[in-house]
């Protein structure tokens, strides 16, 4: 027969369970990132094309109006695009991370059932959750970085702001992605669910999160959307840290605590759900 048996050492010699038990989440992330690389050209094209088109239409078009209307001082005393940048980055972060927790999760449970085959190895359900999140965060950072590149080229962002805005917007991506993961695990098939999320969650979150104008200028009955929205928290914190918008320290702490809290709730909900579904 083939050489399979002649070189056979047996898993007791070959496999050290301590390795997957320690690094399993990263093995899952590696697997997901390999999957992502199959679409790298699309990720780059959309990652760059989207901000270019957006900035040309909204940013520069509306920006010119706003800057003119405010007598050239823009909002918060900075050009409109600079004001807009943290919100755009938070949205890009959320979109990128969401893409990597939603469809891969349905694929893993339903379309290819890869989560079941992964769980048949030493990898635990919890490591699968963590691995999906690590991969989602990698995608999130890529998406944000591409957006930042375009913002820098449009002169909307000084290079010095890049590190802090990357961290702040990725935090929003993390919080939202973890919540989405805990919801997606309950879904049997797409059935347009993500289109609904896009229209009724993502869009209002983007519209009413102090994206185009400060949240405080919204009527109070709409402001709550901003308070629970990771977009607003990342946007407001990003504005404070990138160009020094006036945000009190306690509120900055809230801006960190909300996405971290959302992330914790999302993960702690997702862990048992994954375990339940994989062991059914």
């Amino acid at each position: 027969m083939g050489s399979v048996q002649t070189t056979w050492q047996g898993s007791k010699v070959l496999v050290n369970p301590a390795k997957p038990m320690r690094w399993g989440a990263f093995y899952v992330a590696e697997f997901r990132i390999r999957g992502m690389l199959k679409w790298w050209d699309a990720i780059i094209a959309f990652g760059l094309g989207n901000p270019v088109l957006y900035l040309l239409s909204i940013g520069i078009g509306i920006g010119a109006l706003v800057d003119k209307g405010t007598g050239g001082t823009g909002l918060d005393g900075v050009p409109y695009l600079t004001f807009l940048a943290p919100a755009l980055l938070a949205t890009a972060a959320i979109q990128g991370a969401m893409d990597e927790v939603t469809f891969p999760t349905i694929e893993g449970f339903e379309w290819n059932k890869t989560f079941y085959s992964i769980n048949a190895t030493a990898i635990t359900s919890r490591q699968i959750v963590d691995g999906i999140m690590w991969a989602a965060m990698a995608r999130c950072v890529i998406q944000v970085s591409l957006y930042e590149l375009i913002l820098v080229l449009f002169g909307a962002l000084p290079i010095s702001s890049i590190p802090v805005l990357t961290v702040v917007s990725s935090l929003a991506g993390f919080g939202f992605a973890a919540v989405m993961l805990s919801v997606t695990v309950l879904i049997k098939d797409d059935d347009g669910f993500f289109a609904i999320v896009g229209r009724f969650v993502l869009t209002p979150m983007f519209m009413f999160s102090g994206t185009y104008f400060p949240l405080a200028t919204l009527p109070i009955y709409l402001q709550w959307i901003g308070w629970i929205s990771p977009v607003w928290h990342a946007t407001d914190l990003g504005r404070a840290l990138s160009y020094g918008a006036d945000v009190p320290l306690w509120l900055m702490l809230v801006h960190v605590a909300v996405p971290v809290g959302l992330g914790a709730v999302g993960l702690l909900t997702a862990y048992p759900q994954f375990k339940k579904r994989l062991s059914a």
Partner: protein
Amino acid sequence: MPKSDAHTSTDATPELMIVAKGLTKKYGDFVAVDGIDFEVKRGESFGLLGPNGAGKSTTMKMIASTSQRSGGELRILDKDPNQHGPEIRAHLGVVPQQDNLDREMKVWENLKAYGRFFGLKGAWLDNKVTELLEFAQLEEKRNSKTDDLSGGMKRRLTIARGLVNEPEILMLDEPTTGLDPQARHILWDRLFRLKENGVTLVITTHYMDEAEQLCDRLVVMDKGKIMAEGSPAALIKEYSSKEVLEVRFGSENNKEIAKQIEGIGERLEILPDRILVYTDNGERALENILAKGLHPVTTLVRRSSLEDVFLRLTGRTLVD
């Protein structure tokens, strides 16, 4: 007593790979596996035989240490899967009933990516992938998309994937269900080679011929319980006759005519489409039937199979 003697006597006891005592799995009020006992020794090829819904796959999931038992004891590789799931799974190869290959990956990528989950190194895996492709007779499909493979090829790839960590136990849930006869024979040949080389196999099937081909020992399951246990030959000897005569008189007449041939052979089994006559000499039983002036539409004399054992034990056929 010299030390070496003590050592020899330990070695003479075959290592128990799986021990189940009163193993039970409930889903709410439904009892899928109802207190079963069995043991699997190293190098053995062990079968779980039964119709759909007998509890075979549920038992497999508990052995695979992904589904927790509701009651009883279970030890795999001398560990409790409730406490040591990942450690046990590191040494298992699992071939699920439904191929769960990654359709976006190429054939070789599926093998390599899977090896990574065991923490195996990329360079080592490159060689292993080549070996496994050769074993699965898929060398020419190395760079194909998984979706482009035939059913039999996908099954062989899933089996190859289950071998990537050189498992102590290879578990196969319905390995040839849905395959054409040629694909089944290729697959049996591959599995037989593994068995010859001492890999412990646990196989579920509802195909009798498969169980007879591959299993050293098997349990017959029905409705979550074990009905009988033994080697295929021993089970046939215990629960059936040497030969079986199958006669068909047309589905309208079988029941009526059965009354007339009562007493021929050791036992009769009346199925909707045919009558089975259990006897040590099928030809003579047929002569006796013809002597009564009865004229079956078709007749067949064959050796007893596990199908007959199952029919005897449960009163039902395996594949409905």
